[in-house]
């Protein structure tokens, strides 16, 4: 059994364990324990990872649907490794985040979380386009249930919107994948959906024309990922989904699921369609910039805390997309780093908002005020996470944002200058919220709680502590994280035209699998 398969499918096993657990009371602790086990298993990956190689590692490849050249093909490289770890790291945290907030159907909830973990990890590890698509789409289902069952008042609307919106994008990706497979059949002699084979394809590109194969395919993929990211103007599902989702759902959604979009851009759009990326990348740079500013501006006037954080995600993910399309090492590294740090800090923000919502049952910013007096520990955590979110140096947020901005600056000064305003605006909306919620005289809500203990309990502190540690770790020693991605990023920059991925390590059956030709030559 390959390590990657273990990491991917362990949660499914856990889901079964939880499902058949005789006593519903044990569900929470058991899930927590299992998810922590999972996290440590994934750490093994980190330990064994060879940072000097840009190739795929721990590769596992077995034919799955030979007739269409689809294989069960998992592999990890510097681009995906941290996202896997992020997922396994956030899973226990989400379980802790739902410790008290999820009251009904706990069993189902934890099963959903585990299934979701499998699909997300699978998305990051899949090196076969169809396998990727399968995981990508399948991840919608558990998330749909998480929002729809444990969500807020308007949960069904939000869940459905989330599902359909995402699906709308991904079906065009499916179309593009199939087209690539067909092209692979023409060019490589056999149908294949392996990414490695896709990289070998020679895709027709006509400069300046929209209707060329490469451009259309590029946009087919990019649309799916842009919706997932979500890039302006495809972002409107996000605030709804976040506001309605339960706290753990929001954490996973913001923490990991959004990264599936940017990861896809990085894995598919950039290396597969180099010319189209070069020609049309400016659109994404521009949309990234627009997203940064727009998200920040709109976040500034949100009356609801969760909505504010949701729009801040739009802004932050705008940075990531912008960084990706700089096509230089700084931007790419920054983007990968920012994905991680956004996952951690925004996840933590949602966690925090959820914790306070549980106590006061309100997220209206104007009803708060003076919370710092009654919940000092909570405030400290919140402010630390806020600082990470607004990219104060020495927190994780800074490194990514800085590298992205610098990368952008090296490509296009105007965009970078515009994007830098996001730094200011980010501070504006976050600090505005902090001011309104924590500072000032006690607000309407807090008056009711005067004298009661609103502060965090030990479980919650234990939930947040790893996040805070990571925030500073990543901020102070980004090198520990960047070194894993370095080789891959450099390779991607150097091999822009004709990108390829080597398979590292055991070469036994993997690299070349001959599929039976499906065509009958008449």
């Amino acid at each position, binding site marked *: 059994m390959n390590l990657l398969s273990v990491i991917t499918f362990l949660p499914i096993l856990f889901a079964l364990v939880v499902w058949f657990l005789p006593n519903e009371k044990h569900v929470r602790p058991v899930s927590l324990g299992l998810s922590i086990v999972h996290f440590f298993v994934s750490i093994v990956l980190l330990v064994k990872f060879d940072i000097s190689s840009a190739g795929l590692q721990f590769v596992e490849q077995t*034919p*799955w*649907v*030979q*007739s*269409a050249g689809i294989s069960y093909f998992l592999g990890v490289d510097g681009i995906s490794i941290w996202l896997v770890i992020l997922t396994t790291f956030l899973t226990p945290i989400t379980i802790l985040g739902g410790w008290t907030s999820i009251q009904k159907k706990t069993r189902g909830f934890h099963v959903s979380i585990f299934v979701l973990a499998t699909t997300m990890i699978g998305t990051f590890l899949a090196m076969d386009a*169809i396998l990727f*698509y*399968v*995981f990508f*789409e*399948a991840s*919608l*289902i558990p998330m*749909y*249930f998480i929002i*729809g*069952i444990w969500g807020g008042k308007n*949960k*069904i609307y939000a*869940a*459905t919107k989330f*599902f*359909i919106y995402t*699906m*709308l994008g991904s*079906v*065009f990706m*499916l*179309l593009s994948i*199939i*087209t690539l*497979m*067909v092209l692979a*059949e023409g060019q490589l002699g056999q*149908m294949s959906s392996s990414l490695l084979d896709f990289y070998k394809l020679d895709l027709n590109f006509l400069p300046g024309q929209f209707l060329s194969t490469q451009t259309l395919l590029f946009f087919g993929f990019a649309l799916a990922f842009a919706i997932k990211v979500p890039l302006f103007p495809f972002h409107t599902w996000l605030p709804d989904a976040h506001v309605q989702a339960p706290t753990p759902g929001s954490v996973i959604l913001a923490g990991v699921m959004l990264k599936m979009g940017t990861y896809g851009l990085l894995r598919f759009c950039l290396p597969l369609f180099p010319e189209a990326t070069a020609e049309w990348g400016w659109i994404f740079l521009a949309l990234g910039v627009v997203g940064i500013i727009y998200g920040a501006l709109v976040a500034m006037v949100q009356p609801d805390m969760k909505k504010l954080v949701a729009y801040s995600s739009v802004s932050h993910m705008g940075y990531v997309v912008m960084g990706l399309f700089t096509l230089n090492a700084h931007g790419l590294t920054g983007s990968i780093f920012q994905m991680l740090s956004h996952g951690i800090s925004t996840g933590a923000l949602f966690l925090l908002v959820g914790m306070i919502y549980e106590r006061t049952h309100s997220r209206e910013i104007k009803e708060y005020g003076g919370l710092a007096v009654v919940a000092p520990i909570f405030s400290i955590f919140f402010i630390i996470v806020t600082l990470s979110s607004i990219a104060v140096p020495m927190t994780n947020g800074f490194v990514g944002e800085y590298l992205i901005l610098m990368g952008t600056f090296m490509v296009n000064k105007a965009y970078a200058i515009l994007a830098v305003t996001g730094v200011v605006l980010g501070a504006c909306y976050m600090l505005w919220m902090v001011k309104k919620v924590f500072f000032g005289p006690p607000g309407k809500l807090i008056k009711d709680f005067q004298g009661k203990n609103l502060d965090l309990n030990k479980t919650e502190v234990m939930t947040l502590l790893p996040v805070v540690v990571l925030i500073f770790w990543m901020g102070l020693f980004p090198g520990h994280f960047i070194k894993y991605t370095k080789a891959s990023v450099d390779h991607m920059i150097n091999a822009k035209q004709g990108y390829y991925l080597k398979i590292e390590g055991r070469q036994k059956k993997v690299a070349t699998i001959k599929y039976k030709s*499906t*065509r*009958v030559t*008449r």
Partner: protein
Amino acid sequence: MNLSFDAVDIKYILPLIILFTVSLVPVLVKVFNKNKEPGKIYNFLTPMLGALIAAGASAGVGAEFLSKGISSKLLFSGALVMDGVSVLAGILVSLCLGFTIVLAKESPSINKNQLSEAVFLLMNAAVGMLTVLWANNLLVMFVGIEMMSLCLYILVAMSMELKLSKEAALKYFVLGSFASAILVYGIAFIYGAAGTVYLPELITQINATLLSNGYFLLGLSFVLFGLAFKVSLFPFYSWTPDVYQGSSTPLVAFMATGVKLVAFVALLRLIATQVLQFQEAAVFLQVLQWMAVVTILVGNIAALRQDNLKRMLAYSSVAHSGYVLIGLLAVSSSDGQVLGASSVLFYLFSYVIMTFGAFSFLSFLEKSHESALMISDLRGMASRRPYIALSFSVLLLSLAGIPPTVGFFGKFYLFSAAISEGFYWVVAWGVIGSVISVYFYLRPLVVMFMSDEQGVDVEPSRLGTQNIIFITAILVLVIGFVSNPFYLHIQSAIKTIF
């Protein structure tokens, strides 16, 4: 053409003979039993066994072919053809029949006083279906379709429910006969133009001259339209929702799966004559493309506003016909034939499984013959019947084409076949349609899992139906995960028809 036939041929049509013979058992028992309804043994077990044996006989034929290395065999001086498709589809039809009998036994909407007649008619409809599957000749195809349809008309009308079922039967009958007339008119023209109605002979006859012959064009169009009616393609789909809604649910399960499977196989055989590969037939391809696109959109969009679960699934089955047609488009080009036909057959098989499961779920929930199951009735299913709800969700997600279910792979094969033949825009509309469809497929899920109020109480006694739901749901997942062997079998079966 060999004008005589061999007695050995009878061996190959054994499934048909078995079905017919067994179908007589309940009726005869009833007749000899002073018109008293026979018991479970004759009304249920024997027909079930018959269906299974028929399926086994089909499989036996297949096994014999495989062992002898024969790809296909003509029977009865070329009236019938036994090949991979006949065998596979035959097995599926027989199994559908068996499942339908289970549903019928437990459903409240089938009159238990006439169960024997109902079973008789069901089995004879299956006989008709097998005939259509095996037909190598447009006339045989027509007679088979008629046999199947006439039995079904009567079955629809025989429902316990009084008003709607009669209306449904009326509509089905009138429109069905109307379409049959068009179909047979088309056969007449094809006969007139080509001088034959044998499909293998047609293959040799078809050429550019024939394709500019007005008779032939008329004939081909009419035959296509007639079959399009049976599979409910736009603009011939109007009967589908009404008839499905009015009929008893087990019967709908049978119609939505069996009839569609059979009619599509007929279409497949027609198109496999490579008639559409000629430049002159390009216009047909265009028409078919439009039909596919509009059918998908109409089916999915109309399903959006349905609150009646059965009607919603009816519209969804319309949309699925559109998807299958996309695959058939691929069959119409010379190098996409095998790929397209295999994808069509795979999709049909997956469609049969998931649709049958979905209708079984309806049958499971129906309280009385008059209860129209609304989506809102599913409230709280998840807490009362978690496994059933989960299975239904799996089926619905599969219908929506969400991976990793078989529905996704079915669509995947279809789309890849179509794309490799360059039907990009059709596929684009197809995927847009499937996005729209997600909305209504999710509605039952929403009601089942996300609302806490209670809906209808479930009668707990329908074990058979329940098991069918589980079996189909598991199949949907299993074939989803390991679609390859199934696909390969289908492909090798498909290769026998070309």
